């Protein structure tokens, strides 16, 4: 057992999915050819001025409310001054002392335990451009398409006590943000980015140890691995009598280690001051109430409701809630067919498997809630077996047809007709005399074996209940 306690704080930068950029009317769009989605304002041409995007402000308030934070009634924007080629104005417009939201929290579940992670603040700012390094021509190229994308930076208190907790927080946060519909939260595209501050201290000590800041983690998994690496490094350094240097480190995913950042100055003197090109904003309670009224049901509330309203298992409810599309699909399906538990079983089982196989999201499948409940009803009515039902689902997804059509076309309906089944049963009985003897001597549980054999012969299409009934009657005469 380590004699140290780990202390972690996270800073998440989230790109907001407004239509236009935060301070100009360029499209907020990913994937354009370099420097084609720019205008005089986001290029920082001399004489240009910023005007705040209303939607970005509303999204900021929305995020604040979802994180149980106070919305500041007075907010303003400040300039953060530093030089870097991806920053056209030589300063970033951000919020310093009056951010859109402060003093919030997010409840997370780490293992069995529920924990509140404090949110210090959430502030709006503009994203910088992107640099592409061309080592062969010994230059770097700046692309300003991303410049001016609205960002909200969500800063936690140093409340996280392990890399796993950090990982759990990130997943909960991402899910919450996805529910809000303010961002696609796609780490690969960079719409969600995370920096971490980590330090360790002897257990029992209340003051914080020296922290290091980790950057360049491209997945939640990488955040966890990088933190684990860094915690180990801190322990080794301190145990060996050394001291941690406060610095910014870059995570190298391939080498699985952190390294010192060389390019940016370490001594920061950002010279924040109120941006005179932007005016202050007063956010009155009517605006806040308006945004609050539009807040969707958040994952934790939905989870609890799924348990109580539909009697779902925690396992199923978790799976449904973990995917906003899945949860919506579920509720749409229940409206068509009021069998919540059965639908949840299907979604958390076969449908989820199909999604994983196809690497698709539920709304990308050729499957409507109505299609699914039609299929479930067929299984429940004994038209197809559970097993064949899964097969039907695969065909439905492949071919984009309804359950009825697939069952008809492929001839997958269960055979319940006695005479047809008896032909198969007689064959099975003839081939398994020993088992038949056992059944006759009272071991009725071996019937199942013969049912299985008969099912195989039927190509899975036989009605298992009927098989059981007929085999028992045939052998015991009962």
């Amino acid at each position, binding site marked *: 057992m380590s004699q140290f306690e780990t202390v972690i704080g996270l800073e998440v930068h989230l790109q907001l999915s407004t239509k236009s950029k935060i301070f100009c*009317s360029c499209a907020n769009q990913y994937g354009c050819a*370099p*420097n084609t989605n720019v*205008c005089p304002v986001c290029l920082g041409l001399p004489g240009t001025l910023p*005007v705040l995007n209303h939607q970005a402000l509303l999204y900021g308030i929305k995020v604040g409310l979802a994180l149980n934070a106070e919305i500041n009634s007075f907010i303003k924007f400040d300039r953060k001054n530093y030089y870097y*080629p991806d920053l056209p104005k030589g300063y970033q417009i951000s919020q310093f002392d009056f951010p859109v939201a402060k003093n919030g929290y997010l409840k997370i579940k780490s293992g069995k335990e529920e924990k509140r992670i404090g949110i210090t603040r959430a502030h709006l700012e503009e994203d910088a451009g992107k*640099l592409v390094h061309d080592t062969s021509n010994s230059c770097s190229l700046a692309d300003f398409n991303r410049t001016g994308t609205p960002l909200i930076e969500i800063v936690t208190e140093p409340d996280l006590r392990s890399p796993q907790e950090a990982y759990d927080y990130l997943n909960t946060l991402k899910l919450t943000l996805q529910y809000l519909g303010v961002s696609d939260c796609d780490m690969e595209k960079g719409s969600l980015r995370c920096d971490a501050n980590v330090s360790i201290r002897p257990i029992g000590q209340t003051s914080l140890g020296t922290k290091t800041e980790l950057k360049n983690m491209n997945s939640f998994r990488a955040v966890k691995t990088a933190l684990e690496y860094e915690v180990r490094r801190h322990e080794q350094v301190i145990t060996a009598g050394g001291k941690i240097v406060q610095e910014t480190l870059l995570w190298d995913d391939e080498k699985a280690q952190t390294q010192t950042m060389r390019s940016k100055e370490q001594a920061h003197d950002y010279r924040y001051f109120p941006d005179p090109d932007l005016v202050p904003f007063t956010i009155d309670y009517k605006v806040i109430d308006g945004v609050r009224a539009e807040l969707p049901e958040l994952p934790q509330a939905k989870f609890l409701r799924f348990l109580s309203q539909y009697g779902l298992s925690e396992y199923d409810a978790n799976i449904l809630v973990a995917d906003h599309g899945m949860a919506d699909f579920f509720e749409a399906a229940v409206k068509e067919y009021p069998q919540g538990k059965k639908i949840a079983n299907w979604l958390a089982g076969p449908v989820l498997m199909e999604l994983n196989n196809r690497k698709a999201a539920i709304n990308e499948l050729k499957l409507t809630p109505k299609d699914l409940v039609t299929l479930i009803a067929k299984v429940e009515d004994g038209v197809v077996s559970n097993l064949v039902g899964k097969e039907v689902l695969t065909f439905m997804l492949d071919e984009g047809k309804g359950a009825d059509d697939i069952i008809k076309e492929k001839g997958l309906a269960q055979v319940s007709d006695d005479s047809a089944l008896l032909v198969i049963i007689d064959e099975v009985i003839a081939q398994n005399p020993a088992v038949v003897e056992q059944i006759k001597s009272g071991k009725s549980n071996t019937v199942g074996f013969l049912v299985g054999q008969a099912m195989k012969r039927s190509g899975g299409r036989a009605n298992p209940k009927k098989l059981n009934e007929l085999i028992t009657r045939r052998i015991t005469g009962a």
Partner: protein
Amino acid sequence: MSISKEDVKYIAALARIDVPEDKLEGFTKSLGGIVQYVEQLQKLDVSNVKPTSHAVPVGNVLRSDVVKPSLISKEALVFKVPLIIE
């Protein structure tokens, strides 16, 4: 408060201005003179005074979230800088 050569070097570096040794003295002197002049503000009691960032009070100026075509010509813009090693 006076201003030292070290101060000038620090702020010059922050402002990305190269002040060569032979100009350091001159800038230190002229900046020192201005800073000394500005010192008079320390005499005033401003403890209960709010700062003015905008002389004409305007607030809540917002733009609707509408995309407008950029005014930049369609020719490809390339911005090169010396190679940055992160």
